[in-house]
Structures are given as C-alpha cells and as structure tokens.
C-alpha cells in the first residue's frame, strides 16, 4: 500500500518532536512484526561463486527470500566516446528484476523492455556502494560491466540492495579485479536502512533508506547506535564472504596440486 504513495506525500510523524515519537515507533515495530516475516540476514545466507561460465566473475546469493545472481564482465575495451574519463575505468552497473521475480509479473523479457524506474534506482545505489572499493585507476580506458539479476524478490524489496551489494562484491573478487576491500552489507530491518561497509579499511560506502523506512524521525543517538549495530553485523557477513571466497572448490584443488608449481614459476 505504501508503494503507491505519490512522491509529494510525507509521513505525518515527521512533524512531531523526537521524544514523543519513540512510543509510536515501538508500536509500529510491533505491528510490522505481526504482519510480515523478519527476513533479515539473520536467517542465513547462501553464497556461491563461479556460477556463470562466460563471465569474468560471477556469484549467486540467497538471503531470506531474496535470490540474486551477479555476473561481472571486464575490464574490457570501451568504444571510443568523448564523455568517458579515460584515466580511470568506467563502472557500469545494471540491475534487473526477472519477469517472474516479483509479486506482480513484469511484462516482457529483459531484452524487450527498458529498465524501469526502480531498477534504475537500484542500479545507481549499488554502483555507488561498490565504486569506492575498486582500484579504477589501474584500468584506464576500460569498462567493467556488472549485471545483477534478481530471480526472486522478497517483500518490499528490503533485502535486495543488501544481497546485490554482497553478490556484486563477491563477483568482482571472483573476476580478479583489483579491490581495496570486499564490501559487505546489512539491512537493519526495523527502520529498513541498508549499510554497506568495508571492514579492513573501516569505511562505510553507502547508507540507504528506502521510501518505506521509518527512519525519518530518529534522534541522532539512536541513529548512531543503529549504524554501529549494522556495522557489527556487516563484519560477521564479511567473514562469511571471505570464507566462501578462499575455500571454494577452486582453491581446494589448488592446495593439493599447484602449491609447489607456483613457487617454482620464474617471476621476472
């Protein structure tokens, strides 16, 4: 229902003083808990890399009800265009919902229809979350393409940004594109806020509130504690991401066979 609100409306609780809205927030939380499942990442995450043969790197994630597949192509040559900055790589992110993924069917195959407004919105959010983690200056004049496909959407799309950022980060690492750090993400369910965080560098890359979030009337102290809690959860997700990257079958074969060969290789 709240999805159909026109852009100009405001939540009436925005206009209240901070101290009187605390009770209202508690009530809303209770109501939310009754009607909708708590589908945050505490339910368990499934991650896999190397799913798409043709891509440079790929990954698949299941988080609650959300299922997202990400494939990364690149870095590869871009056609000569004047509007690109040639000193750094160009990052192109395309997010799509499969036609069967949402509650309401999206008509037409992916190639037949243009990106809808919400898909374009998600694309730019995910790109913003991931851009600080890539060493773009190492790949001048090239383009890195990320194609993110949502195979199953969860209620309200609350976990989609989170799942997509994790999947995209894993796919970039799988493609051996140089990164400062992996980006992990966590959605704080009660206020529907998604925080993307790089643990080794201790930097937050993006904080996203969706239209349905109730964060408009938080006090700064409450906001800070929510962010801290999200960061702690991001660290847990990060250790899991790292575990999957280093212990995939790929590397188990190598540990047995390739160890001594790699050391003998002449590096000039």
């Amino acid at each position: 229902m709240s999805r159909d609100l026109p852009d100009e409306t405001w939540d009436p609780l925005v206009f209240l003083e901070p101290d009187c809205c605390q009770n209202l927030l508690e009530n809303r939380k209770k109501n939310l808990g009754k009607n909708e499942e708590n589908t945050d990442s505490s339910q368990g995450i499934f991650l896999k890399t190397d799913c798409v043969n043709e891509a440079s790197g790929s990954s698949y994630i299941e988080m609650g009800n959300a299922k997202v597949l990400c494939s990364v192509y690149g870095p590869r040559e871009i056609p000569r265009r004047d509007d690109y900055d040639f000193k750094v790589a160009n990052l192109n992110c395309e997010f799509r919902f499969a036609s069967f993924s949402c509650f309401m069917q999206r008509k037409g195959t992916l190639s037949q229809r243009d990106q809808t407004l919400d898909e374009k919105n998600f694309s730019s959010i995910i790109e913003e979350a991931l851009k600080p983690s890539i060493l773009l200056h190492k790949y001048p004049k090239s383009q890195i393409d990320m194609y993110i496909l949502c195979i199953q959407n969860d209620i309200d799309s609350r976990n989609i940004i989170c799942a997509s950022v994790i999947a995209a980060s894993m796919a970039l690492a799988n493609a051996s594109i140089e990164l400062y750090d992996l980006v992990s993400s966590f959605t704080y369910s009660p206020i529907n806020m998604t925080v993307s965080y790089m643990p080794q560098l201790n930097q937050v890359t993006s904080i996203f509130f969706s239209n349905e979030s109730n964060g408009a009337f938080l006090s700064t102290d409450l906001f800070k504690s929510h962010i801290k809690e999200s960061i702690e959860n991001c660290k847990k997700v990060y250790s899991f991401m790292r575990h999957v990257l280093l212990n995939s079958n790929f590397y188990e074969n190598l540990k047995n066979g390739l160890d001594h060969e790699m050391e003998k290789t002449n590096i000039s």
Partner: protein
Amino acid sequence: MDNIASNICSPGDLITTDPAFMGGHGIYTTENNKYASVVGYVTKVNNLFLVQPIKTRYIGDVGDVVVGRITAVDTSRWRVDINSTLDAMLPLTSVNLPGGELRRRSEEDERMMRHYFVENDLISAEVQNVHSDGSLSLHTRNLNYGKLGQGCLIRVSSPLIKRQKVHFVNLPCGVSIILGRNGNIWVTSTSIQESSRKNGGFTPLLKPVSLNERENISRICNCIKALAKHHVLLYDTSICTAFEISKQYQIKEILDPKIAQEIAEKTEIQLAVDS
C-alpha cells in the same frame, strides 16, 4: 595474515607492514602497509611480494607469444582481441609484406590491408611493446607468426600457461601446438604448420587433414581441457604426459568429468616423479 600458512589471501588482507619490501601485482600500498587487492596466492621473491590470482585477464610482457582474433581494421593497424583488459594493436609496419621486409608502407598498402587480415581472423603474434595504460603492440615479423588456418582453438585461463623458451611445440604424435601466453592454445597438425611457414603467413593452407591426424588433434584438445579444469600448468611435457596416459581411453571418454580428473591426477603424479 592468518592465511599466510596456506598462502591464499582475499582483497584487503594485510600482507606486511615492513617498508623494506616491494609490492608487485595484486598489492596496493597505504602508509607503508601493503594489502592484497585480489584473491590469490601470496608469493615472495627476495624482497618482492606479489599476489597471483587464478583467473585473470592476460597481462602482457615484451616477447610473449600470443594467439588473438582480429576485431577491427583501423587506418594503418589492426585491433586484436587477446583476452586482456584492452585490445592489442598490430600496426601495418609490424607485419611482413610480400616483396621484402624493408619496403616503405604506401597508401596502396593501407587500402590492401583487408587482403591480409580481416575481422575474425585468428593470428599468432609476438608482443613488441607494452604501453603505460596496459595495452600491447604486436608484431608478426617472423615466418612463425601469421594467420592461423586449420586447427582447434582452446581458451584456458592465462596463468595456467607456463613461461617457456619455446611456445611453438611439435609433439611426437604429429600434432603442433602454439601455447599463447594469453591463454589461447592453437592445436593443429605438424604438416599444416610446416607448410604454412613456407608461405609467409597470410594464406592458410587448406589441404585436407588425414583422419589419424584429426584424431590426435582431438585427443590433445580434450587432454588440455581436462588439465585446465584441474589447474595443472600447461607446457609441452605436461600435455605429452597427459596424452600418453589418456591413450587407454577413447577420445570422447576424456570429456567425462571423472576420467578427466583421473587423467589430471595421474599426470601430476607422473610430472612429480619425473622432476
């Protein structure tokens, strides 16, 4: 750093805080600390640290033999796709034209470019130059290099090709392979390779290949695919060993995952015994 025992690292892992060490590929430096930027093996050579990722785009070096596909014909050069970050360039001046090597390139030569190489042709070439942005310049100034005609192309990940002195190998079974350092391997029969050398490298030889030669070529192709799947380094000895081991199976059976694994494991054992 907790993975240094098993040597695998992921992006953002701290490698060292000692400023005396240098950082090579796959490492970025911040305030004297060196961190890994890719997933891969950490190796140390004297005082150089580097991270070797398993699947990566080809990073060129001068003198490497590469096998690539022409993607475009520009004004006085060809663009070649060699599975790298950027397309490589093959200038008209770096190609042996019929009529002598030292001839000056005229306008007529530029118009005749399509008679030599066209889009989608496969060529073998050598890297002449590496530019600052990572793109490569190639040359085919040798009878070894040129257009490739009849044979099979196999694409593997570039770190699997071991750097050798010779990349044009004639195997004893009558098969010639070109181990391109960019991960493209060209498998053809020795008779075709020898004949096309004499012609100068522009017209691929279209004489028929006998059944026996074709069977050997397919067997070698399947062996290479089996070795690549199990990350065995590819060079003449390893491919020969795999070929000998695979003789007990039919050619199509080598594609079976279990048999492929068996062949790869036996090859590794054999290589370890021999060295």
